[in-house]
């Protein structure tokens, strides 16, 4: 693809939107079902662990500043093994993007437009994503910059309006059953907000100016911290206002939370604020999963003109998104039991293996000084 360069501020906006991602309105439920009223401590644990993940990803990216994650895999693991790993990575990315589209369709058909067929919403969403990728990464980055301010404003406004409903007692007793449930509760947070960050390695070193790389690392970290604080605040507010039992039972706890807004009878039913936030973040998330899958496939097959396969791939995703989950119980079961080991493989084990292979290769060639 053409040499598109994005600024570090745009990277920060992208990272922040990406970290909030699909999980802003869902994650509080799964965290609270495992950690009860201590879910907010789980968020802190996950955020701290995420710092290691971010460091790992940026270090891996910094090793080859002109190569994407997919190219690094192929370079380090060789043609055949690397090609196989990349193929599975592409499969997971496209599947993940289709699942996000399914989420959007499911959310709108259960919460807002109950009469509309799901596939109409799915197809419209896929069309928007394909158009965004057609315009290129630069347009996406600029859009993320705008989204960044909208998300922050809407989120702070809705959290501010729900504040009168806070009941401090909901958070006690702290650490009732010890530290183990807290650690368990941080697992879904890791799986949905922290570990998927590896997909940003598809744009991180390649589309940044070489001189800005140090700056870009910082802005990525900044974006991550802002995104994690939004997740953290949403979980804390859910537990403060709804209590851990309701938070764990509701499917979209943050939407339920904003339905509680009741300021002087005038401001009620303001959940659309948080839905706007969620639509923007899940759009960004789907976009980068699809972008990673699309770019990964093109680089695996060594295509010169990437955009030729965009429309066929979009058609496939639109069809798959219709049946990628059979039903809501299937989705919940899949997300907890399958998605975690899956993203753990690609987001944590694979980068560590790549780093080890890199070290071994450098030692073999006697090029120890190059290891930094």
């Amino acid at each position, binding site marked *: 693809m053409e040499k598109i360069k994005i600024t570090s501020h745009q990277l920060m906006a992208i990272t922040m939107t990406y970290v909030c991602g699909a999980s802003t309105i869902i994650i509080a439920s799964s965290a609270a079902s495992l950690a009860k009223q201590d879910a907010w401590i789980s968020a802190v644990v996950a955020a701290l662990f995420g710092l290691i993940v971010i460091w790992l990803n940026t270090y891996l990216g910094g090793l080859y500043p002109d190569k994407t994650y997919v190219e690094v895999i192929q370079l380090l693991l060789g043609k055949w093994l690397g090609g196989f790993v990349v193929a599975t990575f592409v499969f997971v990315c*496209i599947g993940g993007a289709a699942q996000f589209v399914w989420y959007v369709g499911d959310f709108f058909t259960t919460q807002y437009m109950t009469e509309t067929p799901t596939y109409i919403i799915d197809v419209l969403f896929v069309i928007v994503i394909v158009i965004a990728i057609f315009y290129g990464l630069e347009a996406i980055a600029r859009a993320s910059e705008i989204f960044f301010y909208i998300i922050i404003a809407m989120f702070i406004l809705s959290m501010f309006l729900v504040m009168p409903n806070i009941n401090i007692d909901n958070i006690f007793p702290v650490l009732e059953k010890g530290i183990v449930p807290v650690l*368990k509760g941080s697992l879904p947070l890791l799986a949905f907000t922290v570990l998927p960050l590896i997909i940003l390695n598809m744009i991180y070193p390649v589309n940044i100016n070489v001189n800005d790389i140090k700056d870009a690392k910082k802005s990525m970290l900044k974006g991550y911290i802002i995104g994690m604080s939004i997740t953290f605040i949403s979980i804390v507010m859910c537990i403060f206002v709804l209590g851990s039992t309701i938070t764990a039972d509701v499917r979209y706890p943050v939407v339920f939370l904003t339905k509680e807004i009741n300021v002087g009878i005038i401001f009620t039913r303001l959940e659309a604020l948080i839905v706007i936030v969620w639509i923007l973040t899940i759009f960004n998330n789907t976009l980068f999963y699809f972008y990673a899958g699309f770019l990964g496939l093109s680089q695996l097959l060594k295509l*010169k003109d990437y955009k*030729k396969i965009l429309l*066929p791939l979009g*058609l496939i995703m639109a069809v798959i998104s219709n049946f990628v989950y059979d039903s809501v119980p299937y989705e919940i079961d899949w997300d*907890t039991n*399958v998605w975690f*080991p*899956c993203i753990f493989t690609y987001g944590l084990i694979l980068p560590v293996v790549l780093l080890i292979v890199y070290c071994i290769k450098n030692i073999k060639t006697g090029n120890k000084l190059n290891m930094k």
Partner: protein
Amino acid sequence: MGIVVILLVLVFSIVLCVIEIPKMLQDRQYRELWTFSILLGLGTILAILKSLNVDIPNPSDFIAWVYSPVEGVMKGLLK
């Protein structure tokens, strides 16, 4: 409803082929042409089968099958 979807998908694929294939042939991008044709064929067949209500293997099921050895571990961990 099914016939409308099938027609729409076929029209989409044919229009896309008419626009894109001559360009690729002109530029001698045979690799792109192959990938394009395979992906578009796959997408069209999937869409037609789906609108005829045929059961299509689910990619999520496949990933679940790959990770089925650790399923017990995950169930114990996330309880």
